[in-house]
């Protein structure tokens, strides 16, 4: 039984980790190689795409901005650039067109690179054809620049505080409202048991007396 509980705990932890790894922002230092606009028909990977530009209508296919980049190790990385609008994740990204223009202005050749830090969320997976959603670009000094993920630190600390607060609230509620009732129920049950025992003793005593009377009569 403990294996089952342990297993469920591990699965839950993995799920939470994957959820936060997908949703929280990350930074990549890349060289922008190009930008483009592609028509996408959303199929079975549709949950990995965001919303149409704020104010436009929802269809099963639409044009999506892409930003093509190259990582310092030579590997390619392609980001999409979609509005998240008022929906999930709560990035409130409304300016994907502006971001596309910014990215286009930072395209640089290999010989003379402009290294940028792309803030993004999401995963790149070739098998599912899903792309991370670029949320911002910023020019940095070079591929070795250090970036401290302030937003992630703040968000995770806040989440920890909220979890502790919920725990404290639950404990307070339990101590003041549930435990006294349980104690009363326990005491009432003990009373019932005591009275049942007393009745049993009385009954046994009576039966013993009756048997004694009959035994005396028989002889």
């Amino acid at each position: 039984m403990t294996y089952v509980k342990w297993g469920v705990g591990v699965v839950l932890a993995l799920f939470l980790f994957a959820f936060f790894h997908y949703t929280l922002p990350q930074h990549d230092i890349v060289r922008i190689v190009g930008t483009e606009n592609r028509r996408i028909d959303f199929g079975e990977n549709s949950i990995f795409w965001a919303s149409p530009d704020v104010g436009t209508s929802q269809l099963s296919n639409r044009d999506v901005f892409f930003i093509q980049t190259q990582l310092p190790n030579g590997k390619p990385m392609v980001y999409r650039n979609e509005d998240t609008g008022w929906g999930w994740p709560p990035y409130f990204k409304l300016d994907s067109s502006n971001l596309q223009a910014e990215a286009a202005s930072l395209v640089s050749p290999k010989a003379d690179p402009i290294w940028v830090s792309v803030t993004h969320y999401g995963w790149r997976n070739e098998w599912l054809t899903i792309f991370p959603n670029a949320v911002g670009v910023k020019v940095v000094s070079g591929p070795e620049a250090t970036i401290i993920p302030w937003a992630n630190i703040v968000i995770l600390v806040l989440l920890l505080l909220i979890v502790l607060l919920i725990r404290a609230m639950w404990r307070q509620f339990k101590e003041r409202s549930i435990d006294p009732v349980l104690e009363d129920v326990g005491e009432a049950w003990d009373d019932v048991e005591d009275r049942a025992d007393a009745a049993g003793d009385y009954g046994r005593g009576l039966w013993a007396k009756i048997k004694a009377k009959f035994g005396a009569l028989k002889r």
Partner: protein
Amino acid sequence: MIGFFRNGALGLFVLSALYVLMSIYLRSLARERYENDWADQQAQQSAQGAGTTMSRDEFVEARLQDYKKSLRAKLVLLVFIVPITAVAAVIYLMNYA
């Protein structure tokens, strides 16, 4: 635009629920504190020799009336102000900075 109003309404509803929960929790903490104060007062008074004491309920209710008016109870309104400010800050930083 409609998305903004829909999600905004949902957010306000959630914040109201959080406000109610937080004020119940803080009042429960205050109540416990005043009950302990009363117990301390009883211990002190019996050590010094009896004086006139209020019953526990009267004592706690009187203190709770003061608590309701105090600054601490009003601070729970931060539950509304802080998330709304945070969202406004995110919108500004994401789109205009």
